């Protein structure tokens, strides 16, 4: 309705024009107003600044209040639950259950005794125990607490449990002092929250003792808690007038852009109807192309939508190409460009389908023979364009479509999939349009055998040409099998569209499926290329680091860290966790970006070590031995060799830290690296910034890496252990001064694809070989289905749109027998499949957990045995010393707890900075200490990095300890990781579901086919079609039913004919009797008159003129009576009265078309009208249409096209078929009664049709006929223009 309204509204140009003028004028006015707005801003700026400051203060206070309320409500909730605890066996378990129950796991909950001893705690507790013992904290009001790594908004209040008072502390992290590697970092920042909200820079001093800033460019205010006490100082940069003016100009420019686009849109709406009226599709196409290209460039140059958006859609990281001068420079621009291309492609396809389906489409075989080669070449070029685009999607993007383990891809991946599908569909539609147009120009083949041979040859020739096309290219984007597959797919699309005589919608669906398969195949193909290339990238990455880069990193880290106010404050106060501070500084430095072992060390002004952080626990021990900074090392980078290990070197730098020109301490940045490898693979993943690049396309764990220095193998990483033969192969591949080579290697009957690269460093020749199992590269069904399922979501959406918009009988379809059978099959088969998938996933998860636990348990046994042996060997040794020896000898990382506290850490680089808490995991504590279990497996997390720790009770010299071993340094995986298993399940079960859907549809179709046929036939019968018969090749009850129906129809037809015959006979008899009776009446007076006249003649009285005239006039009157009787009988013998009323013929035509959907004929309706209102008899109209269709079928027609057009007073209905036509000598006899060319015809159908049409003042004639088909033209008066028809009873 809205659409109609808009069309009718805008189709009149006079009404359209004011809108265009309005939008353009508004755009100009905005341009004129802009300088005034800028001036006004300048004049009122001072007042505005004050208002804004007040606003920022108010809003900040509100945000803070929200956080406070969250804390207090959490406190109240926990207090209530804790106060209800009962003193029974499960007390401890229940206590910890409540304390660890917060939904937001970042919230810290700690329960202290009044003596300030820890009583219960959640994971990652915030308040450090020593600090809590020493310092006083506010109670019953919130305050900011700064721990080593985070700043928390904290609330402490008393709670009574079993009549004893405790202190319950709830802490919500608001600021994080460190940053981890991007994948694992969980950002927490109140400052950033404020910056994003107010679009200016903020600085928050989380201390009530800080004073406001004196900087005139900044504004400071006190942040207060609910009680009105100051808890922090918030400082923000005042907005600058210059920036504000730039914003105003930018905003106005965007308004202008939007208005111009609106004007363009309105113009397009206005010309839409005119565009549709263009007679020639080719001209339409050219104009559409011109408009699309023009419009695309206009909106691109206006900066739409890139200038209006931020985030992933406009980030070149996710896709960027320089094609078209920036038309595809970001994902959103790529999507829009493809949308424009798709509109053009869909227009071409729709036009071609409409053209070749026309019944008057003239086949010109010459077009096929001349056009085949150029069109094939054109199609190959298009395919190359498609491949180039898909390659760009893979190589010009950091999205990894197959590596991402998530089942539901992220937003940007979805956008790229839509774009890919549109792109591929556009290309496929163009190619299919060209080929369908060419093939449709061929004359029908005499036999299907010739036809099959012809198309087989055409297919093989096309395939051959495709291979030749690929072979003769310098940079082929396809290999032979790929081009063959894609050509075959396209030919399949053509075949289906032509074979099923698809209309536009069906054709598009077929093309979409083929486009999807083509796109995913290409995506997979180029992804394999990318994976192969990633071996090269890995080799480059392994050699990217060098001394120059490390020197730069050390220098940059010192420069940036030396400016840290946090560091200066800590050094001045000399009261901080300096290990944690060193970690915080390291995490924000350039050192964090590379996977090279590095450290930050802090000293006081007297060179006394305050704290340090090192990425490796093991090398830290080594560098402490060698690194003794001296004053003369300041401002110069120093390089050291490791006496114990000649392969290692260290670069370090030292910088004094001053505050207001007073020396407060020193900072050192250190990097220890392997002179051959540089990269350190032992750094935990969440700290190794550089490893992201290594994991780019394939998982780094799957790679095998060999390093040669001066042709000598010095390092092997991975499961592939190269033999001498392998070494020879590698070295010979790089002979003749080659700097890189690809080579196949074989290890344990597995083929590996390998890339070898030569680099020269430190006067040494280094060869890096990266090898990957070939099957890891293989084209995989999982990959295919992972993307195909995403495409099918779009396909389903597409179907839903068609269903909702175009399918008027959707309810009937839902309740149809076929739909119900299909639904039953799907429910029966898919539900067990889903249950099986869930069970398998659960099973795999459990097995993985057991495997991880076993691996950790093995490590634990080693440590336990070592400790046991030490205890036996040196029974009087101090346990702490024994543990230190164990750490050094075993080079294992482990933790020892005594009761709830950490007793010893062999992960001191992590525990020292509190990345790993110094208290035992709360659940492990309950199970092992309170409940008496022997072991416990706990899951822990540092930001988004998860790890597993296996705890076990041990005893040393009769003292109980808890030993903890974790996979924090190197995450273990089960047989298959959960995400890998999901991908596996996803692939296998998707395939199964697809097969089930396919089979179910097939079976449902087969089972329901006879019922559907019966339904249609019954409907035809009800509409008076007695010629309907159902063909059935099956056996069983259904066939009996069908045969019964056919018999019934035949009997009904025979009975009707007999009844009609009998009726006619009775009628004739009755009529004869009536005629005889009626004739007798005038005959008697006539006889008497004639006798009287005869008597007058005998008596010679004929000269009595008056008497003679009277007698003769009597005779004449009776003759007239006879004539009238004859006329009345004639009228009586004609057709019965029609039931005339106003009807809409359009739905009737559609209904009749549906009656023949099961028969071998394609009937299409071609009209732009939404109703055809005539005065007529619905039953007779249906009967007439059925007659025409039956006649066409009997004339061997396979296509019928019904088109309706209108003039001022009439509708013209053209019924065209492609049957055998009507002989010229028969045309005039067509509408005569009893004329038929059929053996079983009655010859009455067309006669009745003509009678009906003429009865409603219409006209019917044969417009044209030939051996290619026949067209009947029926003219119908529009309703209201044939008022007289209602009176016609004929």
């Amino acid at each position, binding site marked *: 309705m809205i659409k109609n309204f808009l069309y009718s509204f805008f189709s009149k140009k006079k009404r359209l024009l004011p809108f265009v003028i309005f939008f353009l004028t508004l755009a100009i006015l905005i341009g004129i107003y802009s300088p005034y707005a800028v001036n006004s801003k300048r004049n009122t700026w001072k007042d505005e600044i004050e208002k804004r400051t007040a606003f920022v203060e108010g809003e900040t206070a509100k945000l803070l209040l929200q956080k406070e309320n969250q804390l207090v409500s959490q406190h109240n909730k926990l207090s209530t639950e804790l106060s209800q605890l009962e003193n029974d066996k499960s007390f401890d378990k229940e206590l910890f259950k409540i304390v660890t129950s917060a939904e937001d796991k970042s919230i810290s909950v700690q329960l202290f005794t009044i003596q300030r001893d820890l009583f219960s705690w959640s994971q990652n507790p915030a308040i450090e125990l020593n600090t809590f013992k020493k310092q006083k904290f506010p109670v019953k009001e919130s305050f900011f607490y700064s721990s080593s790594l985070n700043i928390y908004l904290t609330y402490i209040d008393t709670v009574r449990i079993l009549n004893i008072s405790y202190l319950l502390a709830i802490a919500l992290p608001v600021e994080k002092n460190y940053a981890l590697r991007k994948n694992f970092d969980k950002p927490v920042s109140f400052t950033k929250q404020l910056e994003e909200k107010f*679009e*200016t*820079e903020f600085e928050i001093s989380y201390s009530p003792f800080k004073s406001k800033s004196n900087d005139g460019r900044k504004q400071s205010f006190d942040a207060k808690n609910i009680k009105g006490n100051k808890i922090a100082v918030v400082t923000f*940069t005042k907005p*600058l007038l210059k920036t504000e003016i730039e914003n105003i100009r930018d905003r106005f420019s965007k308004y202008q852009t939007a208005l111009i686009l609106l004007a363009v849109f309105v113009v397009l709406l206005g010309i839409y109807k005119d565009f549709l009226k263009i007679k*020639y*599709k*080719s*001209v339409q*196409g*050219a104009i559409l*192309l011109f408009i699309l290209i023009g419009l695309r460039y206009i909106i691109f140059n206006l900066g739409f939508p890139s200038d209006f958006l931020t985030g992933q859609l406009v*980030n*070149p*990281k996710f896709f*960027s*190409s*320089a*094609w078209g001068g920036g038309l595809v*420079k970001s994902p959103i621009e790529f999507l829009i460009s493809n949308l424009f*291309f798709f509109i*053009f492609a869909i227009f*071409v396809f729709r*036009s071609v389908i409409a*053209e070749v389906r026309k019944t008057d489409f003239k086949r010109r075989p010459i077009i096929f023979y001349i*056009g085949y080669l150029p069109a094939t070449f*054109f199609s190959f*070029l*298009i395919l*190359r*364009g498609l491949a*180039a*685009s898909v*390659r*760009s999607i893979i*190589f*010009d993007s*950091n999205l990894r479509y197959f590596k991402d383990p998530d089942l539901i891809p992220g937003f940007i991946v979805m956008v790229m999939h839509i774009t890919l599908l549109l792109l591929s569909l556009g290309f496929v539609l*163009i190619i299919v349009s*060209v080929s369908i*147009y060419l093939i449709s120009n061929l004359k029908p083949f005499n036999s299907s055998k010739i036809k099959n041979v012809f198309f087989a040859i055409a297919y093989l020739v096309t395939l051959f040409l495709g291979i030749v096309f690929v072979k003769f290219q310098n*940079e082929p*984007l396809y290999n032979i099998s790929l081009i063959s597959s894609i050509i075959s797919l396209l030919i399949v699309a053509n075949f289906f569209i032509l074979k099923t005589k698809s209309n536009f919608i069906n054709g598009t669906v077929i093309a979409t499926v083929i486009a999807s398969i083509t796109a995913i195949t290409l995506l997979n193909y180029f992804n394999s290329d990318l994976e192969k290339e990633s071996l090269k*990238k890995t080799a*480059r990455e392994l050699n*990217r680091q060098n001394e*120059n*880069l490390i020197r*730069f990193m050390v*220098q*940059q880290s010192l*420069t*940036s860290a030396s400016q840290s106010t946090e560091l200066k404050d800590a050094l001045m106060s000399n009261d901080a966790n300096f290990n944690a501070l060193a970690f915080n500084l390291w995490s924000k430095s*350039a050192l964090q*970006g590379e996977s090279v072992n590095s450290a930050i060390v802090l000293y006081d002004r007297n060179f006394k070590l305050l704290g340090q952080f090192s990425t490796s626990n093991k090398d830290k021990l080594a560098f402490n031995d060698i690194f003794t900074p001296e004053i003369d090392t300041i401002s110069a980078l120093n390089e050291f060799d490791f006496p114990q290990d000649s392969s290692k070197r260290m670069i370090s730098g030292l910088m004094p830290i001053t505050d207001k020109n007073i020396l407060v301490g020193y900072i050192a940045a250190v990097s220890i690296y392997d002179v051959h490898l540089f990269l350190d693979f032992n750094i935990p993943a969440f700290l190794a*910034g550089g490893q*992201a*690049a290594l994991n*780019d396309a394939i998982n780094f764990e799957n790679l095998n890496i060999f390093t040669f220095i001066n042709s000598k193998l010095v390092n092997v990483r991975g499961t592939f252990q190269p033999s001498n033969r392998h070494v020879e192969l590698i070295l010979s591949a790089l002979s003749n001064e080659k700097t890189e080579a690809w080579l196949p290697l074989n290890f344990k009957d597995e083929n590996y694809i390998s890339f070898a690269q030569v680099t*020269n460093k430190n006067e040494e020749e280094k060869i890096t070989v990266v090898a990957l199992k070939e099957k890891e590269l293989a084209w995989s069904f999982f990959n295919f289905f992972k993307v195909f399922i995403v495409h099918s979501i779009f396909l389903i959406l597409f179907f839903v749109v068609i269903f909702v918009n175009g399918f008027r009988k959707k309810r009937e379809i839902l309740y149809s027998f076929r739909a119900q059978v299909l639904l039953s099959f799907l429910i029966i088969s898919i539900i067990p499949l889903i249950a099986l998938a869930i069970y398998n996933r659960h099973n795999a998860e459990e097995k993985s957990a057991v495997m991880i636990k076993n691996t950790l348990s093995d490590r634990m046994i080693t440590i336990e045995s070592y400790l046991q042996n030490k205890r036996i060997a040196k029974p009087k040794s101090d346990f702490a010393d024994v543990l230190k020896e164990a750490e050094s000898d075993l080079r294992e990382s482990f933790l020892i707890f005594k009761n709830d506290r950490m007793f010893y850490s062999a992960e001191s680089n992590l525990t020292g900075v509190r990345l790993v808490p110094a208290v035992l995991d709360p659940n492990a504590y309950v199970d092992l200490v309170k409940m008496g279990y022997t072991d416990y497996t706990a899951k822990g997390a540092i930001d988004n990095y998860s790890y597993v720790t296996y705890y076990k009770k041990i005893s040393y010299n009769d003292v109980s300890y808890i030993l903890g071993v974790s996979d924090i340094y190197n995450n273990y995986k089960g047989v298959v990781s959960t995400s890998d298993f999901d991908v596996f399940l996803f692939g296998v079960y998707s395939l199964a579901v697809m097969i089930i859907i396919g089979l179910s549809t097939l079976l449902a179709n087969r089972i329901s086919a006879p019922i559907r046929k019966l339904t249609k036939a019954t409907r035809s019968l009800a509409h008076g079609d007695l010629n309907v018969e159902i063909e059935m090749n099956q056996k069983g009850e259904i066939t009996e039913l069908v045969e019964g129906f056919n018999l019934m129809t035949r009997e009904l037809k025979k009975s009707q004919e007999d009844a009609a015959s009998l009726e006619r006979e009775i009628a004739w008899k009755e009529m004869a009797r009536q005629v005889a009776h009626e004739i007798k009446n005038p005959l008697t007076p006539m006889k008497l008159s004639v006798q009287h006249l005869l008597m007058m003649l005998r008596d010679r009285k004929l000269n009595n003129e008056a008497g003679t005239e009277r007698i003769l006039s009597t005779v004449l009157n009776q003759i007239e009576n006879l004539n009238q009787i004859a006329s009345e009988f004639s009228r009586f013998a004609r057709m019965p009265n029609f039931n005339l009323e106003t009807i809409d013929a359009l739905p009737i035509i559609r209904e009749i078309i549906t009656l023949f959907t099961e028969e071998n004929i394609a009937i299409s309706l071609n009209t732009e009208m939404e109703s055809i209102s005539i005065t007529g008899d619905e039953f007779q109209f249906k009967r007439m249409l059925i007659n025409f269709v039956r006649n066409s079928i009997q004339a061997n027609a396979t296509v019928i096209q019904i088109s309706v057009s209108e003039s001022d007073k009439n509708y013209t209905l053209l019924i065209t078929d492609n049957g055998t036509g009507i002989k010229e000598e028969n045309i005039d006899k067509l509408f005569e009664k009893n004329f038929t060319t059929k053996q079983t015809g009655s010859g009455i159908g067309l006669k009745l049709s003509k009678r009906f049409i003429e009865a409603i003042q219409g006209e019917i004639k044969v417009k044209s006929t030939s051996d290619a088909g026949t067209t009947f033209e029926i003219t119908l008066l529009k309703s209201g223009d044939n008022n007289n028809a209602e009176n016609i009873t004929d």
Partner: protein
Amino acid sequence: MKKFISVLLLGFVLFLAPAEAQHRVTGKGQSSISQSQDPVDIFNRIQSGIATSNVSLFSTFLSDQTYFSLFSGLNGYYSVNQSYYLLQDFFNIYHPLSFKFKNIKNGKSPYATGVLSYESKSKREVAQVYVSLEKTGTDWKISQITIK
């Protein structure tokens, strides 16, 4: 309908032909100045390009996979096409005020370090820049750009 093929060909020329070049585009609006293969000259071009926010001045030297490590959070390898627009976007947000390489080292692994002064949201800041080159065939290409 007779003109369908001609319209399709027109469509091909206007819409699709440039896609052919898509996989080997080496940067938009590249300077027509002939490429020097002296690393010092290349660093000078990079210096001018960064100082004037004109990525085109050195986009010809971006390699197929250039490693980026920028303080904006961008890390990793990027193609030529991506690198061009990523740098352009970066300089649009962080407008360079001045840039000069303080240290240029030639040799087998040429690299240069310098200081970039930039403005963002009306705030002036300073960052350290590290750029290294590597030999690809006979040409020097940028292997890494670090701005911290």
